[in-house]
C-alpha cells in the first residue's frame, strides 16, 4: 500500500492540531474543476462514519471548521481539533479521505449549499473563473473522487504540538487498508473556462496578471523577491506609486498565486467607480514600470528584510496567495497548508530559511529585470462593479 506524503509542522505552542490535505488539480478540464468544487464541499460535510453534526462537534473547540477551498491549482481540505482530541482528528481525516459521503442525497446537499454562495471580489481578482455546477451529478463526483483522491496524488499536512514519529504511525495505521476504487477511463472534454468580469459589488478591481513560471525556474528567487519589493509593506512600489502618488486606491498589493504549471505574480488595486478602467490600469502599469528606474539598493535590502520577517518571524504580510481568499496568514492552519502545498507543488520540503538564503544574492539589476518582465508582460485583469 502506498501512503501519501505527510508533511509535519511542529508548533508546540499551538492549542490545536490542524489537518490539511492538498489535492493538486493540474491537467483538470474546466468542467472537471467545477466538479472538484462539489467534491470538496461533499468531502467537507460528512462521511460514512461521521454525520455532519458529529463532524461539527468534533471541530467545534478549535475555532475552525471542516472546509474545502478550490484555488487556481489545487483543492484544499482543512480542519482542526483541540490538541486533546488529536486521535479523533486522525480518525476524521482517514474517514474524510476514504469514506466521504458521495451519495446522491449528499451531492444534492452539497449543490444546495454551494449554489447560493458567491465569491468575494477579492477571490475573483485572484481567480476570475466562474464555476457552473448546475449539471453536476453524483456519478461525476464519484468519478472525480476516484481519480483525484488517491495516496499517490494527494499530500497530507499535520501541524501543531505533534511528534513526527507519532504522526507517521497514526496516519499509517489509519490509511494502510485504504481500498482504492479503480481509476476511471479518461474521456474527451472540450469545456472552456468561464471568467467573471464583475466584482458583484460597488467598486472595481484592476489587476495585472503575470506570465506563469515553474518552481524549477532559475529566476524564481528574483521573481519572488520582486513580489516583496513591489507589494509587501508601505515602502513597496504599489503602495508608494498607486496609493501615495496617484491616489488610485486604499488597498493594493502584489502577490504570488499558483498556476496549473507553476506560479504567477499578480498585482491589483481596488478602486471606487467604473469609468475609464482600461486606461487606469494601463496608467497604473506605466507609472509602476517607470518607478523601477528609481529602485536603489535600499529597495532591495528592504525587500529582503521584509521577506525575512515574513518567512522567519511570521509577519502577517505574506505575498503567498495559494488559497482563494488571498494571502496566507501566520496561523498554524495556513503555515501547515503552505508547507503541504509546497511539497505537493514542487516535490521539495518547504524551507523558509533556505528560500531566504536564495533571495540574498539577488542583485538589484536582476530584481529590476524580474519586476520589469512581470509588469510589461502582465495581462490586464479588470473586474467592473
Amino acid at each position, binding site marked *: 500500500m502506498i501512503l501519501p506524503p505527510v508533511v509535519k509542522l511542529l508548533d508546540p505552542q499551538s*492549542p490545536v492540531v490542524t489537518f490539511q490535505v492538498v489535492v493538486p488539480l493540474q491537467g483538470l478540464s474546466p468542467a472537471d474543476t467545477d466538479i472538484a468544487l462539489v467534491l470538496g464541499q461533499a468531502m467537507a460535510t460528512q462521511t460514512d462514519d461521521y454525520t455532519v453534526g458529529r463532524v461539527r462537534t468534533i471541530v467545534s473547540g478549535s475555532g*475552525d471548521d471542516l472546509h474545502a477551498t478550490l484555488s487556481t491549482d489545487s483543492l484544499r481540505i482543512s480542519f482542526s481539533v483541540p490538541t486533546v482530541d488529536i486521535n479523533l482528528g486522525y480518525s476524521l481525516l482517514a474517514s474524510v479521505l476514504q469514506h466521504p459521503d458521495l451519495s446522491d442525497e449528499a451531492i444534492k446537499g452539497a449543490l444546495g449549499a454551494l449554489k447560493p454562495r458567491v465569491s468575494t471580489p477579492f477571490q475573483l481578482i485572484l481567480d476570475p473563473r466562474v464555476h457552473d455546477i448546475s449539471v453536476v451529478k453524483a456519478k461525476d463526483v464519484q468519478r472525480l473522487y476516484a481519480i483525484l483522491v488517491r495516496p499517490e496524488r494527494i499530500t497530507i499536512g499535520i501541524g501543531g504540538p505533534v511528534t513526527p514519529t507519532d504522526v507517521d504511525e497514526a496516519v499509517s495505521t489509519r490509511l494502510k487498508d485504504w481500498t482504492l476504487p479503480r481509476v476511471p477511463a479518461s474521456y474527451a472534454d472540450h469545456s472552456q473556462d468561464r471568467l467573471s468580469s464583475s466584482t458583484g459589488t460597488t467598486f472595481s478591481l484592476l489587476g495585472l496578471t503575470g506570465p506563469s513560471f515553474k518552481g524549477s525556474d532559475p529566476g524564481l528567487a528574483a521573481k519572488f523577491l520582486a513580489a516583496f519589493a513591489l507589494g509587501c509593506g508601505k515602502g513597496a512600489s504599489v503602495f508608494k506609486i498607486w496609493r501615495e502618488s496617484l*491616489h488610485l486606491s486604499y488597498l493594493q498589493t502584489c502577490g504570488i498565486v499558483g498556476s496549473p504549471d507553476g506560479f504567477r505574480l499578480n498585482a491589483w488595486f481596488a478602486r471606487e467607480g467604473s469609468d475609464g478602467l482600461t486606461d487606469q490600469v494601463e496608467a497604473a502599469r506605466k507609472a509602476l514600470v517607470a518607478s523601477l528606474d528609481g529602485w536603489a539598493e535600499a529597495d532591495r535590502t528592504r525587500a529582503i528584510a521584509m521577506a525575512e520577517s515574513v518567512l522567519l518571524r511570521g509577519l502577517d504580510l505574506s505575498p503567498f496567495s495559494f488559497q482563494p481568499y488571498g494571502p496566507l496568514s501566520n496561523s498554524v492552519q495556513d503555515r501547515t497548508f503552505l508547507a503541504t502545498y509546497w511539497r505537493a507543488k514542487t516535490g521539495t520540503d518547504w524551507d523558509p530559511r533556505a528560500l531566504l538564503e536564495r533571495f540574498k544574492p539577488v542583485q538589484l539589476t536582476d530584481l529590476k529585470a524580474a519586476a520589469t518582465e512581470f509588469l510589461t508582460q502582465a495581462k490586464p485583469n479588470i473586474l467592473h462593479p
Partner: protein
Amino acid sequence: MLSLIAALALAPPPIDQPARLRTILSNGSVVLVEPHFEAKSITIDLFASSRGAEDSPKSHGWRHLLEHLLVRGRKGGVDARLEAVGGFLRAETLRDATAIELELPPDQLALGLEIVAEMLHYPEVTAETIKNEVPILKEEIAIEADSARLANAGWTANYAALGLDPLGDVARIAEATPEALTDLYIRHFRAPNLVLVISGPIDLDGGTKLGTELMARLPGSPVRLKGTPRVAHPQSKFDASAPGSAITIPVGPFDSRVTAATLAVTLVFASEHPGCFVTYTPSTQAGLITVGTATNRDLPALAITADADTFESLFDRGRRLAQGWLGRQMTDARSSTFLRGLLLVQSANATPEKLEEAVQHFTLEDYRAGIDAIKQGTVVRGNR
C-alpha cells in the same frame, strides 16, 4: 543606551517572573509588559481610548483621519525606518479606541519606542495634508467589507449616533481643519486615555522601565474623561448597503455571562450554516454581536431567528465554539496582546481572563437568554 535596550530584548527568560506587569502612572497612562519568550518578534501596541473624543455626526471620521495622519510620523518616513529592518506598522480606528501596532525584530525595541515617542507628539497637519488624505480615505470607505456594512447598519439601528462606523463619512472628513484635528488629538491622546503594551521576547522589568520612562514624560493628571455611555434603543429592521442579511444583537459588557452565551448561540448558527460570519469586538460598554451572511444570498436573516429555538440542544457545542473563538483571539503573542490592550484601555480591570470566565461558566439559562436576545435582534437587510 541602545545596547542596553537590545540586551533587554534578547534577555533569557528569568525564573519566577509574573506573566505580565501592569503599571499605572501618575499621569493616568498605563504600561503593560508581557514577556513571550517563544515569540519571534516584539509587538508594541499604543491604544488611545475614544473617551471624550468620540465621533459625532458632525465629526464623523475625524478620528480615522487623525489615525492616518498620525502614523506618518512627525518627521515622516516612519514606514521606511521600520521596513528597512523588517518591521511593520498597522493602525486601526475602532469605536472604543484607536490602536497603533508595531511589529519588530527582537533587537529593534529601541526603534519601536522611538517611533511610539513620535506618535505621542502631534504631527504637522496642514489643509494640504488633509486634502491629500481624503481621496485615500474615500477609497478605504468604498471597499468596506460587506460583513462590516451589515454590522455597521446594526450599530446605527441600535445605538444611533453612539454607534457610528469608525471609518467615517467622506463628506464630514473633508470638512476637518488642522485646528479641529489638533483639538481632537489633545482630547484623544491625553495621558489618561493611553495604554502602551510591549510584548515578545523581552525582560519584564527592563521592558517596564523603558515603557514607563517613555509614558511618564507625558503631561497629565490621572483623571479620566467621562465618555458617553452607549445605551441601546433597538429597531426591529434596518437596511444596509450590502448584499445578504444579518441579525444584530445588542449585548452587555464583555464579561457578562449572557454576552458570552449570546456569542455561543450565534457561533452555533454559523457552524450550522457555512458561509455565515459572526462579528464581535469585546467592549466594557454595551456592544453588538452580528451574525449574518454576505455570500449566501438565499439565506435570509430571519432563518437565524427561526432556527434559534432548535439550538438549545447544541448548548455544549456552543460553549466549545465560544472557547474556540476566544482561543483564536489569543492564538499568539501578538493577538493576545492586542486583546489585552484593547480591554485595558477601556478599564484598568478589564482582562481576557474575565471573558474566559464568562465563556467557561455561562449556564443553560444564560444560553436561553442568548436565544431570546437573537429572536429580538435587529434584522438588517442588505439592499443590493
